[in-house]
């Protein structure tokens, strides 16, 4: 038995002995997506906390992180085995969120020892919940257009300005921000990556409602907020380097999240068609709709196969390659097309905002249809993605 296989056995035993029964079968497609943690977290199922604790003890909440920072020091391959076994039992990740997925890896790469020791263990235990402060109202796709000012005053910065699209800011304890510490000729310069405790005086948060209803997004305002200079990650004025690296963590998550459940889009549409359309024995009567669903189902499968191919290439040790640049734009436009077609299938039944007279599942689908319009805007708009493909992959020249 290889070392990896014996690790797998070990994990199985651990999970069998320690994973609470009540959590098994709840993830990843179940109702529970994992423990987001933080000081403001509402009262939580004690089994979730128990699950977090037993994992933390073994370093399994952040398995690839070094032991000294609360991880288990596992290789990627070992961590993959761990996750496979958790998935096999339908277990949620013990700790999830921006801390674990984004600022954690960034601190490991760019943080100093003090910062790592201070923040990483708390993230691994889910004690502190983090949110992201990148976007500003006047920036949009132009992320480097950072206007929020941080002026030096001795050992502190005085921060003034506004961030937007800060997901879950209302539930978070700390925020990592790009701030402007000096004006330079290129706007990518003079940006600093700063960690801010949201309990500091002068920080306030307002929820953003979307066209689809309430949302996790917030606007976060900073008015004369004092932040210690030691909260800078990397060099002062070199925050763009840190910020860009962090964005890689974000992007790589988006495309693959769509392909997670193979064939699910088509299945959902056919299910919808079963409810709302006429059937002729085993066949959908409306030939036009049948072809539309098939066209969509095919595109979805082609995309999932592309995800597989990218993954196999990466596994084979090769560069993930140019193919991966298409994932975000294809995934999001496909998702929109799926919701549009679903709405076409639902017809008048898809026009509800709340009850009565509309089914729960139709209402939810309608909200998601509206929400899906943001997919091609957030996380690098489709326009930005196509610019990137044109320039980086196809090597087309910059507009003069």
């Amino acid at each position, binding site marked *: 038995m290889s070392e990896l296989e014996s690790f797998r056995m070990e994990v199985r035993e651990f999970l069998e002995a320690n994973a609470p029964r009540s959590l098994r079968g709840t993830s990843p497609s179940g109702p529970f997506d994992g423990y987001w943690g933080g000081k403001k977290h509402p009262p939580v199922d004690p089994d979730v906390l128990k699950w977090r604790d037993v994992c933390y003890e073994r370093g399994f909440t952040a398995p690839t992180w070094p032991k000294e920072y609360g991880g288990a020091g596992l290789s990627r391959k070992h961590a993959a085995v761990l996750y496979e076994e958790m998935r096999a039992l339908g277990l949620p990740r013990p700790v999830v969120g921006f801390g674990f997925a984004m600022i954690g890896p960034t601190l490991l790469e760019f943080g100093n020892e003090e910062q790592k020791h201070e923040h990483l263990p708390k993230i691994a235990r889910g004690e502190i919940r983090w949110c992201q402060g990148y976007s500003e109202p006047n920036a949009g796709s132009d992320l480097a*257009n950072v206007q929020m000012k941080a002026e030096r005053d001795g050992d502190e910065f005085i921060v003034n300005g506004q961030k937007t699209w800060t997901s879950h800011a209302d539930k978070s304890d700390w925020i990592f921000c790009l701030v402007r510490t000096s004006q330079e000729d290129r706007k990518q310069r003079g940006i600093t990556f700063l960690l801010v405790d949201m309990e500091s005086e002068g920080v306030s948060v307002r929820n*953003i409602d979307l066209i689809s209803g309430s949302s996790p997004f917030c606007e976060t305002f900073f008015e004369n907020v004092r932040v210690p200079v030691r909260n800078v990650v990397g060099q002062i004025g070199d925050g763009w380097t840190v910020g860009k690296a962090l964005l890689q963590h974000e992007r790589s998550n988006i495309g693959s999240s769509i392909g997670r459940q193979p064939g699910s889009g088509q299945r959902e549409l056919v299910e919808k068609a079963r409810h709302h359309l006429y059937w002729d024995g085993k066949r959908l009567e409306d030939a036009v709709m049948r072809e539309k669903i098939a066209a969509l189902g095919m595109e979805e499968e082609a995309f999932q196969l592309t995800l597989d191919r990218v993954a196999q290439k990466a596994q084979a040790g090769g560069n993930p390659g140019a193919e991966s640049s298409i994932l975000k734009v294809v995934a999001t436009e496909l998702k929109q097309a799926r919701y549009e077609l679903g709405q076409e299938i639902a017809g*008048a039944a898809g026009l509800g905002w709340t009850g009565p007279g509309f089914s729960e599942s139709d209402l939810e689908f309608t909200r998601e249809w509206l929400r899906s319009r943001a997919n091609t*805007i957030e996380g690098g708009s489709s326009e930005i993605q196509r610019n990137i493909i044109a320039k980086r992959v196809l090597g087309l020249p910059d507009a003069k």
Partner: protein
Amino acid sequence: MAERPHLNLIANAEQKMLAETARKLVEEKAPVERLRELRKPEHPKGFSRSLYSEMAELGWTALLIPEAYDGLGLGLFDLVGVLESLGRELAPEPLLTSALLGAYPILEGESEALRQRFLPGIASGDAIVTLAYEEEGLRDYYERPSASITAYNAGYVLNGTKIQVADALVADAFVVTCRSAATDSLAMVLVEANSDGVSIERQYRVDSRVVGIVRFENVDVAEDEVLSLEAVPLFNKTLNRAAVGLSAEMLGAAEKAFEDTIAYLKERVQFDVPIGSFQALQHRAATLYCELELLRSSVYAAAAAADQAEEAFPRLAALAKARANETFLHVAKEAIQMHGGIGMTDECDIGFYLKRAQAAAWSLGNTSYHRRRWAELNGY
């Protein structure tokens, strides 16, 4: 396949003035942001009754009603200009409802008694009559409703449930599509809202319009409240007219969403330039502009054909609605994409246009429905 008749596609001076007046009034008193207030549960009507009265005073509700019933006896082209103006701000005042969905089947139906009873009130704006034709699971088989009437005493009894009935909560009466048990054909009858056995429940729709579930339980229908017992032609004529009216609203809405987007493209700066200077966006905007112009021609042509009593009218009505469905949705989606993140927020008005586009596309015949009608009318 019929030849195209000569259609007058340009508004005359009176029509222009009428549309211009409407546009100013709507811009001033009915800006789209009003919907954030009107959509709340505490506004059961979903529109402003006083503004509607003002519209009625300006004669809009009377436009299509013959002078014999205290109307102005004008044409659909006149109304289309007004509806386009309402559409620009997504104004929910029930002009389309009353002037077309309710009044038209009464006007063209078989009951002189109903004409005398309702048309003067509709013309003055005092009465609101709506059409109840949607049913759960019916899709666009409008001529095969489950609701039905059976003979009883000297008249009939109506049973059935209609959904998403426009302006159900304020309607004084409903024109109801139903199956006549005797003839096994589509029938259309009128029922007053306060009749015994009628109950109404508000529905909350994505486009903030107030619609309702209307239940009819053993409701008496008198002989002279029957509009037609062989109602397929009457229903189709009603659908055609109303579809053109709705298309006009959609044209106005699409055009406003487009204008707002173009303005945003000029004003929003990213990467140190206005985003409207990016050629990829420019070309998409140009494409939308083309679609809008084609839609405008289609709507005006359908209205002109109605007024000129052209045989081509049913074809052109199908054309107008199919293109309105496609164009408005396309414009609305692009409008949000071009607005970027701000376009996704409830604070920004542009999202209302997408919601309305979806709802309007599924009222009075979706695209597929009208394409099938078009193919049939063209002999294939």
